[in-house]
């Protein structure tokens, strides 16, 4: 996995939110194509609960990169 050096100093925490992106002026669902990353290739290894991210940040003394995302679009799941 080719991880930029600046990301190695951070711990990636990703949090689920419910507001669709387009409600905040983001892209409409019809504007979205596919992810750049092919299926099976490595992406970011997110911590997916605050608890594990917090404990890991304390354990390794790294700051947290907090990202909020929704895994649904208009209630349709299985999509970012």
């Amino acid at each position: 996995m080719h991880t930029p050096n600046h990301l190695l100093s951070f711990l990636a925490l990703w949090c689920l939110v419910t507001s669709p992106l387009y409600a905040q002026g983001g892209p409409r669902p019809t504007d979205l194509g596919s992810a750049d990353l092919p299926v099976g290739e490595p992406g970011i290894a997110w911590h997916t609960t605050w608890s594990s991210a917090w404990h890991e940040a304390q354990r390794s003394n790294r700051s947290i990169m907090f990202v909020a995302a929704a895994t649904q679009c208009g209630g349709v799941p299985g999509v970012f």
Partner: protein
Amino acid sequence: MGGDSTRQIIARMEELSDRYMPKETGRAPLLQDFDSFRQALNVAAADQRVLVILQGAEDELERAKETLRPIAWSGGIIGRFHYDCSPEPNWTSTISGLEDSPGIHLVQPGQFGTEGVLYQSLPLDARPEEIRAVMSRANSHYAANTEQKVYASHVAEGRKNGIYFAGAVPYGEDRDADGEIDHRPHENRRTPRQ
């Protein structure tokens, strides 16, 4: 995102990370987990990754988590899977091919993350080499048999088929600040349009 914005973000991240000196603990980071199996399956579908589920009695589970920890963060495995430990009761009802029993279960998420298919189960005390090998095979199999998701058509198909994920918080925003969620841009306007 423009090049200038990206550079600014990276510069800011470097500035922040310089304030901390990462500790060399000699151990792999903690294993990731989710708050619920339902959420884990949804995320695995969205990211198009195989979901690794650990189920069992607490002591066995802790040992399995320790075994899995260095594997999860190692080359060839990192960033390719999601993990959920101790799924809630009845989680197996949405996974075909799975018996409700202790083990390390590798699940391929369905398109909408509302169901899945078991790839393989391993005992909680499986050897690390065996776990790694099965995980690698699961990832290859899933990648070879899964079409890259096109988000626009995914959402359109979901709407057409009435697929709906009820979240813990109602969808939408309170745009007019009346304390109620407005599900559509012009819903609940205080002053009707003339």
